């Protein structure tokens, strides 16, 4: 008597992956608070290290907030694959009947909601501490909303390449940060344009292009790297 095997469809698999990610994150809450604190510390270091002069800070605020976002995302990338690699669930993802590309996309999305979104939520507070004008905050937040997923996706590639290493330290940052330079340039350019009174549409369009490019291409590289890392 053969037992009928229930076919688990793509949607269910992705839903399970997302739920699992959220559950694991909830159980290790501290690991997701650290990057936020790191973000705040970076912001605080600039006035302390350079100058609390409002004129200087308001000029530097956009760049400092964005650099802080970049660096704290780098810090949070460890959480993306490390635990899954250690307990073997990464292998299960690779062996799954569903495309690894989509599973990676789902993981990156969940990771972004857990790290990028909180960052975006506290960014207005930190930006105002650097004397960024109130009226430019929407531009800053829009660039963060469009740019942080790109950083998460590209960072995912770096995390996937190094997941099998014992202590990778800043290796992931070294690999990923040069690739995120275009996002940095266009995001800060957009807010700068808003400060200068010009239209930010062009910059947002380019950021959108980068977002689309990374959503479609990055998961390919990430899944190739994951398959590589679990195969040894």
């Amino acid at each position, binding site marked *: 008597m053969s037992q009928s095997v229930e076919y688990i469809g793509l949607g269910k698999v992705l839903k399970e992956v997302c739920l699992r990610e959220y559950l694991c994150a909830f159980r290790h809450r501290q690991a997701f608070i650290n990057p936020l604190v790191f973000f705040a510390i970076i912001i605080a270091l600039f006035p302390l290290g350079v100058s609390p002069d409002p004129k200087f800070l308001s000029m530097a605020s956009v760049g400092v907030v964005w650099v802080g976002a970049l660096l704290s995302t780098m810090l949070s990338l460890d959480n993306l694959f490390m635990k899954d690699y250690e307990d073997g669930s990464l292998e299960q993802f690779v062996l799954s009947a569903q495309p690894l590309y989509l599973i990676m996309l789902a993981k990156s999305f969940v990771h972004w909601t857990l790290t990028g979104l909180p960052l975006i939520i506290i960014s207005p507070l930190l930006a105002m501490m650097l004397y960024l004008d109130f009226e430019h905050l929407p531009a800053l937040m829009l660039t963060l909303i469009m740019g942080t997923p790109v950083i998460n996706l590209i960072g995912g590639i770096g995390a996937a*390449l190094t997941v099998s290493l014992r202590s*990778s330290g800043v290796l992931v940052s070294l*690999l990923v940060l*040069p*690739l995120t330079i275009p996002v940095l340039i266009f995001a800060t*350019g957009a807010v700068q344009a808003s400060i200068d009174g010009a239209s930010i549409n062009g910059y947002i369009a380019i950021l959108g292009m980068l977002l689309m490019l990374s959503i479609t*291409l990055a998961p390919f590289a990430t899944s190739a790297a994951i398959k*590589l890392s679990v*195969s*040894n």
Partner: protein
Amino acid sequence: MKWTFFHKLGSPKWFFDISGKLLPWFVVTGILLLVIGSIWGLVFAPKDYQQGDSFRIIYLHVPTAILAQSCYMMMAVSALVSLVWKMKLADIFITSAAPLGALFTFLALFTGAVWGKPTWGTWWVWDARLTAMLVLLFLYFGVISLQSAIDDIQLASKATSILVLVGVVNIPIIKYSVEWWNTLHQPATFKLTEKPAMVPEMWMPLLVMVIGIYCFFTAVVILRMRNEILMRERKTKWVQAFIFK
């Protein structure tokens, strides 16, 4: 089309034998052309109208910059070959070429900066080309450190190939964004005259230097690849026989 050539390329032993024969030619040609080119550029090329004699740095800066960029392109092609056709020699090329590429990128940056001082008045200037070259240096460092961080050679080669390909997709985007960024932040009165309008007496030594540096690069890459082959294939019979001689 003779495909046997490409199949032969897959064999480290074949490459080892043939590179041993070609190596002296590349060494001699490379060094000769570099020396001739440098002397030609330093002594015989005419002085530049605007920059005086400091422009002679161009004979070092431009060839190294060209090589730094094409080295990465070569690595990208190798990475593709390695991932698709699983050719060992492609992996070996990437391992051997990366440190060289980084070295020449550094030299391009250094000569560019030193050229900047008399030309623009400052040791470092965040112009589009130098900044993009700096990012290229970071990309090289990433490749080198990823390779050295992973112990298993097969894994390291594949991971590095993926990284190189991701980098090469990014390079046009990075270049475009840096150039754009530069036009935004460049004070309007700044005139960048890096490549003076050149007469043949000026660009011929440059051509010699470019060909010479490519020959030199080929020679050193062959040297490094031969070392790499000896290490990786040390358990095979032909290497054992080679060492025994």
